[in-house]
């Protein structure tokens, strides 16, 4: 793997030519059928979801969509979902559980949309509900962070048995700009923030926040998309094969334990006073 600074990886993760969810769907899946709407009040194009075949086997795909042209960008709100997007995602994941389909999510978002309407319609509640329900799904769940994965807006699709990151993807509590502006009241210090945030794939693997790093072609996924897709396919296939051997209950229990351990001081998770 290449040695890059965190700031360089952020730049690659945001590269406009970096493969999008639609590229992954086209390259790795067949028979994709898009499902729209949260069945409550709306449809959010910033979240793309549906059913497809993966190596001949039905799966549910959910992910954030940024769009490729300016027109698409605007339509998809630059990949920043509203509550309807998260509620649609939950609807599709529950349906996947009903029909015993694995769930594969693709994440590339600068975060949940911080808008007036999003707040009125319960952005926080929508994300919280996803975290809770994803933790107990009884089908395999794999999350692939392909570009940027920021804040609860990314986590709401990433409570998975395997959280995989492309080599140059980043995953963080919020954007380095936002981080710098909250902590130092100076968004211009985002470069400094990148290095302190531990947001790169190798860092997060070391911290056991993620479960695997998917290598990219030397110049980044956008320089050789076909090769990049092949590697993603290989990794996905391997992890899915592993997970498919487990029962639903075992999967949910292991997923719970994985997140239960995060940030727990050693042994204190087991100990109980009184």
């Amino acid at each position, binding site marked *: 793997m290449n040695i890059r600074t965190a700031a360089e990886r952020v730049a690659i993760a945001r590269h406009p030519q970096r493969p999008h969810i639609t590229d992954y769907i086209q390259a790795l899946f067949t028979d994709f059928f898009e499902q729209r709407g949260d069945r409550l009040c709306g449809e959010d194009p910033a979240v793309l979801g549906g059913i497809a075949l993966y190596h001949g086997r039905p799966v549910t795909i959910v992910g954030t969509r940024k769009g490729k042209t300016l027109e698409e960008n605007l339509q998809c709100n630059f990949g920043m979902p509203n509550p309807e997007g998260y509620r649609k995602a939950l609807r599709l994941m529950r349906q996947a559980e009903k029909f015993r389909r694995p769930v594969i999510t693709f994440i590339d978002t600068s975060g949940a949309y911080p808008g007036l309407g999003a707040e009125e319609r319960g952005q926080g509640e929508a994300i919280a509900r996803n*975290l*809770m329900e994803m933790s107990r799904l009884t089908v395999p769940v794999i999350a692939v962070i392909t570009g940027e994965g920021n804040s609860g807006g990314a986590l709401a699709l990433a409570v998975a048995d395997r959280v995989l990151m492309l080599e140059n993807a980043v995953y*963080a509590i919020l954007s380095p700009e936002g981080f710098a502006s909250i902590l130092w009241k100076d968004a211009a210090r985002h470069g400094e923030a990148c290095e302190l945030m531990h947001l790169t794939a190798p860092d997060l693997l070391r911290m056991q926040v993620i479960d695997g790093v998917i290598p990219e072609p030397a110049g980044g996924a956008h320089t050789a998309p076909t090769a990049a897709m092949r590697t993603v396919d290989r990794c996905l296939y391997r992890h899915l094969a592993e997970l498919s051997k487990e029962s639903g209950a075992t999967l949910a229990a292991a997923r719970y334990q994985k997140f239960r351990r*995060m940030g727990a*001081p050693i042994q204190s998770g087991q100990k109980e006073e009184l």
Partner: protein
Amino acid sequence: MNSIFAKRRARLLAMKAIRDNYVPSGRLVSCPHCGQESERKAVAQGLSVCPKCGYHFPIGAYYRLSTILDPGSFRELHEKLPAGDPLSFPGYREKLSAAQRKTGLTEAAITAAGAIGGCKCVVGVLDSRFLMGSMSAAVGEKITLAIEYAAKNKLPLVLFAASGGARMQEGILSLMQMAKTSAALARFSAKGLLYISVLTEPTTGGVTASFASLGDIILAEPGALIGFAGPRVIQQTIGQTLPEGFQRAEFQEKHGFVDAVVPRTEMRDTLSQLLRLHQRGGLS
């Protein structure tokens, strides 16, 4: 014997609550909401609510507990869980020490077993004086341990949120506490147990987008700011000023995210009523 312990516990909480008393010293206190001055004693006796306009002053965690728990029922849980610095973030340890000195707390969450109106329960409280009640790994761990303790002992759970959101200095590990606490609540809920979430000033960011929004019943203190994105961020995003009362408790009630806005003076009775209503199922 039992009563000796109960008395001792009552005294302990009373002492901690006094230390917590948020009302600034001096004979008069001026309200940040209406600007009017009131006698310090009148404010303190009215649970730190402005006697003129009903503004709810932020209060410390132990003081909060003393206002809702039955006297002598307080028993702190996981008191010794230490604060951490998982990313070795520059300057963070000093910030933690300063917050600890200022508040007398180890971290931003206090959890306890106790009783409200005779009903046993587990109560967790975030303290907004400690780094804005932000969610560190230790806070997430303490909340999760409290949820697990309640689940194991089949007790109802009451959590008071007061948080600006994530603890920046703990980065992604702060984010993961959202998943951890929400997952623990999924297990708790599957056991058929009651979780009451109380939202107080302020409840925003990662806490709103995790355990605070997952109560079977959600209460809020009047005027509390409740939302996912902070008002400043939203204003920057949409480039216009926000409507009056946006994201306040009453707004959230109107939009369907809060069961009831409950003044601090009625909180204890409301919680007691809700716990009683859940003491047995309607079919049993």
